């Protein structure tokens, strides 16, 4: 042991936080020298194929498995009846209230099918090909039942998705600013505005989306004696372990879940799935390791879907443009079952419709409804994109009604930077932010004034290609979540996160995190954070995750929570390492603990040049040869962090779209975003998150949409029809940042996983509507296909040439705000309650 003093003059090492490090994990991911669930081969392993219902709603009258059983290589064919005891149950973690109706969700159904794609039987065979061949030989007789597919039909309760429930409504949930004391009464504000102000009523459709992660889902289950080891392509190994134990009767201590490298999720893998439960049940029954890997077609049909809402909004404002009240009424499609957070997903948007604006009154209601379609749950942003879309569309509509620039109307109504911390009308306390700064930077990067000039010129020259500018000044709530708030919301678990730091004898560091990365680069970011905190080299940090036997405690990865909550736990674990190391360092340095200072990886003695490196203290702790009395030979640190609040990233996104009025084709001209996500750990990873998020949000605006036919068959069942974009369909984005650190965490991070997807959708649609508003268009249903844009223009022109715009409210139940092309010309018209014959903003 040497007491070093040669570093006294060394300059402080360069900080890792803020460095655009290439990702540690990429070498093995890119070269394929890694382990995905489907790569796993175990001795004697069987392969499973699922027999799925082609019908959306049916009763099973018989299942004949005789022929399948005799097919080559088949070891077993298992029906729901065979495993009715102990197959477990796909659970919801978030019943909105005690009255919520949640139909039992059996992994393998027994007699009732509630959506196409439900598993009816499982074939186990020696090879995947033999399983697949035999699955075609299982003969199932169905008695088809009438299916309810449309949200607005479902609410009538004429056809029931689950006849034994007696209704399609699962739950109704309300947030009322007057009742909870965070604002005034919304009906009062609307009534006042009807007398002397502006009332805007609009209805928007949030189409159904399919998460479309890159790696299809896969599960391997190895029953070894009483122990059950499950590998799964999941975001939530800890939640899976809990639900398997809670619903199958296997003790939690006997279940080990491993999420190896996982290829994307976007929320689509935060479910505990029928396929996972079925694989475990069959493996237990046959006593053999089993693997199931879905095909892409199965993934699109049977992985949970996202979004799918009808949104009715009523916004009241004074004549000067000051907003006063916002009333939100949602119908949310759950599909056939209530997913793990399926019922709660629209509720996650409840605090976000009011967004960054200072409404006096706010009222939110959601009715969640069961239909005979694939179940719906969290998808990138989960509730917050829906809210952001609606409010940002409304702010543009308000500006059009006022004939003013939409940026100016937003500025008039947003929270100013000197008003933080600010408690919103929904009751959330936004800790920090600066909307003025982000917007100023964005407008400059965008060339806002120049593009407005060009827009004016194109309008004046009646250019067949019109230009529109779309704005989205969004905020979101990240860092899920304070456990006490989750408890108050009837959520079934906490929102904390756990971390352990193990100091190895050689000075290397193992970080164990309860988060479960599936593409986010946690290994790299966590290494940067720990390198700075403990003053060790970036390369010396190893990050372990995703195995419940290694990372025994965790709440996993979703909702932009990992860096905000999970990395804070890592920081606190690191601080415990330092605190435990200090007395050992003091002892070795023959100094008082009070005189020990820890900076840049070195325990120094105040006022001297004596000191010890972290590695030296780690070695001393490991040997235990020379420790102070009463000190254990261990400087590992463990911490569990439960946040006090959410974090509130925000940003200003500006989009310019060209609209070819002859064809309805839309082309993105420019996209600028300035996001305030608090402290940035790794700018390269952040850039990747923002770009990916933007494309997913833009894709909702322009390209993606899950469509069913009248029988409940998914029409967009392959990537031929579910039109995902590629890099060939996007432009180069301009991204930048302002930084208002979160005040609730040491690092000041706010979360970036969902920002791009939340903010971009309304920016794009606002731009399209802005381009063609002078042609009489005030909405285009998503995805804004060329046909829809073209028909909206035709409808708008038809009304314009009739010389009047019908000012009927959008809420005429006979003519809901449909696809403009499909509706009467009147319903596509402007619906300002001021009753003007507005033909839109001419700014």
């Amino acid at each position, binding site marked *: 042991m040497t007491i070093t003093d040669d570093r006294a003059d060394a300059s402080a090492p360069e900080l890792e936080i803020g460095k655009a490090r290439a990702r540690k994990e990429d070498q093995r991911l890119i070269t394929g020298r890694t382990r995905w669930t489907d790569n796993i081969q175990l001795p004697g392993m069987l392969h499973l194929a699922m027999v799925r219902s082609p019908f959306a709603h049916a009763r099973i009258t018989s299942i004949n498995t005789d022929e399948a059983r005799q097919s080559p290589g088949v070891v077993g064919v298992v029906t729901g009846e065979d495993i009715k005891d102990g197959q477990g149950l796909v659970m919801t973690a978030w019943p909105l209230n005690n009255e919520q109706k949640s139909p039992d969700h059996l992994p393998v159904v027994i007699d009732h099918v509630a959506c196409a794609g439900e598993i009816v039987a499982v074939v186990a065979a020696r090879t*995947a*090909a033999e399983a*697949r*061949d035999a699955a*075609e030989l299982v003969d199932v007789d169905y008695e088809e039942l009438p299916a309810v597919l449309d949200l607005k039909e479902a609410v009538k309760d004429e056809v029931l998705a689950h006849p034994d429930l007696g209704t399609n409504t699962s739950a109704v949930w309300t947030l009322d600013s007057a009742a909870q004391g965070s604002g005034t009464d919304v009906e009062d504000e609307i009534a006042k505005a009807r007398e002397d102000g502006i009332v805007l009523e609009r209805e928007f459709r949030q189409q159904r989306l399919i998460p479309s992660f890159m790696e299809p889902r896969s599960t391997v289950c190895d029953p070894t004696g009483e122990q059950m080891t499950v590998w799964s392509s999941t975001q939530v190994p800890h939640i899976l372990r809990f639900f398997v134990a809670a619903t199958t009767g296997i003790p939690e201590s006997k279940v080990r879940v491993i999420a190896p490298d996982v290829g994307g999720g976007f929320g689509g893998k935060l479910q505990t799935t029928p396929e996972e439960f079925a694989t475990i049940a069959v493996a237990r029954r046959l006593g053999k390791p089993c693997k199931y890997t879905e*095909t892409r*077609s199965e993934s699109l049909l049977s992985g949970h879907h996202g979004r799918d809402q009808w949104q009715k909004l009523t916004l009241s404002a004074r004549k000067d443009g000051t907003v006063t009240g916002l009333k939100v009424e949602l119908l949310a499609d759950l599909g056939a079952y209530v997913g793990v957070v399926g019922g709660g997903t629209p509720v996650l948007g409840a605090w976000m419709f009011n967004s960054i604006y200072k409404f006096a009154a706010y009222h939110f209601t959601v009715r969640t409804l069961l239909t005979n379609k694939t179940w719906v749950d969290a998808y990138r942003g989960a509730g917050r994109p829906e809210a952001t879309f609606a409010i940002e569309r409304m702010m543009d509509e308000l500006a059009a009604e006022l004939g003013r620039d939409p940026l100016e109307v937003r500025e008039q109504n947003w929270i100013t930077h000197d008003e933080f911390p600010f408690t919103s009308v929904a009751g959330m306390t936004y800790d920090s932010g600066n909307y003025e700064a982000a917007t100023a930077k964005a407008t400059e990067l965008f060339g806002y004034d120049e593009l407005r000039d060009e827009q004016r010129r194109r309008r004046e020259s009646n250019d067949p290609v019109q230009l529109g500018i779309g704005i989205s000044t969004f905020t979101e709530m990240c860092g899920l979540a304070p456990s006490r708030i989750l408890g108050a919301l009837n959520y079934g678990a906490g929102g904390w996160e756990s971390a352990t730091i193990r100091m190895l004898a050689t000075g290397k560091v193992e970080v164990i995190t309860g988060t479960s990365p599936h593409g986010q680069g946690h290994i790299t970011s966590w290494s940067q954070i720990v390198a700075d905190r403990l003053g060790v080299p970036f390369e010396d940090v190893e990050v372990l995750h995703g195995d419940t036997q290694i990372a025994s405690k965790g709440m996993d990865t979703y909702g932009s929570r990992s860096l905000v909550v999970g990395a804070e736990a890592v920081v606190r674990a690191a601080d415990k390492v330092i605190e435990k190391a200090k007395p050992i360092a003091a002892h070795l340095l023959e100094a008082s603990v009070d005189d020990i200072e820890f900076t840049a990886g070195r325990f120094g003695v105040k006022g001297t040049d004596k000191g010890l490196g972290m590695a030296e203290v780690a070695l001393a702790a490991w040997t235990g040869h020379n420790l102070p009395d009463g000190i254990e030979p261990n400087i590992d640190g463990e911490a569990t962090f439960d946040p006090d609040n959410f974090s509130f990233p925000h940003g200003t996104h500006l989009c310019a779209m060209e609209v070819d009025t*002859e*064809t309805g*084709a839309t082309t993105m001209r420019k996209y600028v975003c300035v996001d305030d996500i608090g402290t940035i750990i790794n700018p390269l990873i952040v850039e990747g998150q923002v770009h990916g998020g933007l494309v997913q949000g833009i894709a909702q605006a*322009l*390209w993606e*949409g899950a*469509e069913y036919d009248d029988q409940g068959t998914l*029409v*967009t069942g*392959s990537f*031929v*029809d579910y*039109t*995902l*974009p*590629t890099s*060939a*369909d996007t432009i180069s984005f301009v991204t930048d940042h302002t930084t208002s650190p979160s005040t609730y965490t040491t690092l000041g991070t706010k979360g970036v996983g969902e920002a791009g997807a939340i903010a971009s959708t309304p920016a794009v649609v606002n731009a399209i509507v802005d381009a063609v508003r002078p042609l009489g268009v005030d909405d285009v249903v998503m995805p804004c*296909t*060329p*046909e829809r844009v*073209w*028909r909206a223009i035709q409808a708008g022109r038809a009304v314009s040439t009739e010389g009047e715009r019908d000012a009927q409210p959008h809420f005429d139940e006979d003519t809901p705000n449909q696809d403009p092309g499909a509706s009467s010309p009147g319903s596509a018209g402007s619906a300002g309650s001021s009753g003007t014959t507005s033909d839109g903003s001419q700014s």
Partner: protein
Amino acid sequence: MIPAQFDYVAPSSVEEAVAALAEHGDEAKVLAGGQSLLPILRMRLNAPSVVIDLGRIAELQGVSEEGDHLVIGAMTTYAALLDSEAVNTHAAVLNKAIHTVADPQIRHRGTIGGALVHADPAGDVGAPALALGAELVIAGPGGSTRTVAAEDFFEDLFTTAVGEGELLTQIRIPKHTGWGAHYEKFVRVSHQWSIVGVAATVRSEGGSIAEARVGLTNMGSTPLRAKAVEVALVGKPATDEAVREAVASVADGTNPPSDLNGDSDYRKHLATVLTRRAVLAAAGA
């Protein structure tokens, strides 16, 4: 990919391939580039008992010139055609159309012959083949061959003049040297099948259109040739106004499909806009 089981045959000559077809009859499917067949097998939409792979038949590959004609082997890939200076010079509209087919991976696997015989009306090579007046050489049993004009080749959705036991071997294209060309493809995402496509190739003389050929993609159950428009364009100046008028009736008599990308009447509207643009671009206007 786990298709239903099939036997695999890989003949090394056209003669052997035709013999294999004769032996297996309608139990067999012919594999060219596989860009449509393999997804069909993977999803088990079809389960042939034999797949006859043409990939090892050298005589079906490549582009050559025979006097006034280009001769293209049926198994020539899109990528090889894009690399061919002869195609670019003498059949420019084919080059332009192939540039728009799907993505680079598919263009390196997919073949012109496979696409023509698959006869998906949304495919991008049928319309240029029609516009260029291509002739399709079909081999049959006993070394027989016959030649069918492109206009007679496409019979219906996924149905061509290639009969049972026959094989498309060559595409013969009259040289259109010096003709301007454009393929106007309308899609929502770049790798998509055409919602509507228009292949136009134009011979100009002194600022006017001397001759024009126009083929339409996905405007009916087969690719279509817009003959009335071709006639109306002759002698017209290459101006927006003149071309607009000449192509106004291009959608008359067509019967395009309705699907998530657009209704039939929207496609008809698109065809008029896209034809105007394609002709003007082909004429260099």
